[in-house]
């Protein structure tokens, strides 16, 4: 599915939260949304999910205007999954199983559909079946987070919005969760909209980046272009380049040559630089 906003503005009583936003969210991509606090990122993702009923401008899904109610107000879009910050705070059932089946039951799913979805979702998030009878409070922080995300993936969303999904997790749990989301997005050809302040994660996982500043969508561009060709966009919003890219820049400057890389992943950068380092006789091997 393709999600498209045309000249969308959202006004709260005394201020405009986002102004004239136009963008296209294409299928099968990991799209990161960056910007300072208050830049409009949260309003933008809420518009996508249909959580803000009163918007100016057009919102189209697969070129058709999204549904509005009798008063002309936007309705929540069920095909989009939304994982809020600290989603584990919203776990309320007594077992993981009940937590996972809550929304499907509300939707009147059959037993078969539910168990099929559970057996799809658990491995996607690196969870084993023996977790199902446990109470959420018996789980570690990382497990709780994955259960909360699993309960959103149960509904098999085409597009998943995640707002700072790794806040508070230790580094290994964080990398594992982002990799699981990346696998889901790639294998199932789904779309992820990822709100983050961590430029290292944005560089590592995204295909595209949407840059917000003071309520405006400044630019939507591919990840490589942002970090390698238009780093001033980051500076303008007070963000730093990931250290791996700063490193790339320093080596380019020292070597006096441009180093071509195809992605902004740290491993690829290090792999490209190692031979240069070796050629200069700086490696002990």
């Amino acid at each position, binding site marked *: 599915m393709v999600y498209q906003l045309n000249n969308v503005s959202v006004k709260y009583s005394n201020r405009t939260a986002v102004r004239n936003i136009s963008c296209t969210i294409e299928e099968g991509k990991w799209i990161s949304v960056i910007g300072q*606090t208050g830049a409009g990122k949260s309003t933008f993702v809420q518009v996508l999910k249909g959580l803000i009923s009163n918007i100016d401008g057009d919102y189209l899904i697969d070129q058709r205007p999204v549904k509005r109610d009798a008063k002309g107000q936007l309705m929540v879009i069920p095909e989009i999954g939304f994982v809020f910050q600290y989603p584990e705070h919203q776990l309320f059932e007594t077992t993981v199983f009940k937590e996972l089946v809550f929304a499907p039951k509300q939707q009147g799913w059959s037993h078969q559909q539910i168990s099929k979805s559970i057996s799809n979702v658990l491995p996607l998030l690196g969870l084993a079946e023996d977790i199902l009878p446990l109470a959420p409070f018996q789980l570690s922080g990382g497990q709780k987070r994955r259960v909360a995300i699993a309960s959103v993936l149960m509904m098999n969303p085409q597009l998943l919005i995640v707002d700072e999904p790794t806040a508070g997790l230790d580094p*290994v749990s964080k990398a594992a969760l982002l990799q699981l989301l990346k696998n889901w997005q790639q294998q199932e050809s789904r779309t992820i909209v990822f709100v983050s302040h961590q430029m290292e994660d944005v560089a590592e996982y995204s295909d595209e980046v949407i840059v917000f500043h003071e309520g405006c969508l400044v630019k939507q561009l591919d990840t490589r272009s942002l970090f390698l060709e238009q780093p001033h966009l980051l500076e303008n919003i*007070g963000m730093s380049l990931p250290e791996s890219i*700063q490193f790339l820049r*320093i080596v380019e400057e020292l070597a006096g040559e441009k180093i071509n890389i195809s992605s902004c992943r740290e491993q690829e950068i290090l792999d490209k630089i190692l031979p240069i380092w070796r050629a*200069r006789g700086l490696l*002990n091997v």
Partner: protein
Amino acid sequence: MFTFDHVHFYYKKGQPVIDDVSFTIQAGEFVSIVGANGSGKSTVAKLIDGLLLPKKGTVKFHQLDTANPHDLMKIHQQIGFVFQNPEDQFITTTVMDEVLFGLQNIQVPREEMRGRVEASLRAVHMEDYLDAMPHQLSGGQKQRVAIAAILAMRPQMIIFDEATSMLHPEGRKQVLAIMQDLHHQGMTIVHITHHMEEALQAERILLIHEGRLQFDGDPLRFFETVAVTNYQLQLPFQVRLHKTLQLEGPIAVNWKEGIRSQWSIN
């Protein structure tokens, strides 16, 4: 100055959360306590604060024992805590009231209050926000006010319990810079974190894993000798770089200079 002596703690018998941990923190030290989610590092913080009491062993600040309620009052006046969520720490409506609140509680003479409030806000570069309302501040600014409120009480030691983990990169930098400032002024700093870049700033690292103290030593030795990924932690960028590029000599905290100097040697 601060001693954990063979401390044991559990919620359920037979399932130790803290298992025979001993260490001493000297006045003026900057110590990072590191470990994964669920390792027991926050339990250590609660034991330091006397929110939890050891099942066996003692936790002492100088000669004061957290297990003694009379001592605990005095300990609380000497040790300040900065918590994870800046939203949770505000109880008043202006920055000035927030800093005043603690002083009123410990009955500081009225004529002394204003000076203490201003000095502590200056120390965290928030002196221009005296009348600001907390909701107008960024996360980093809120944490700095929380720190000022603690400084006004003139503690000997401040514990930062994952105090940067909910902040954006800019706020994180601000709070880390304040920690360094305070340390250079002689304050004892304990920073509980799982961000290894931040731990690298400390003079000493204590690694807690499954309730046990697994390492106690300086950061560079920590990153050279401990397989941190076994503990759900990650090497900081400069250490990954140092290892990948097989750089000579000790790990440079300022990796950019390290790279340039290595390049110019050859």
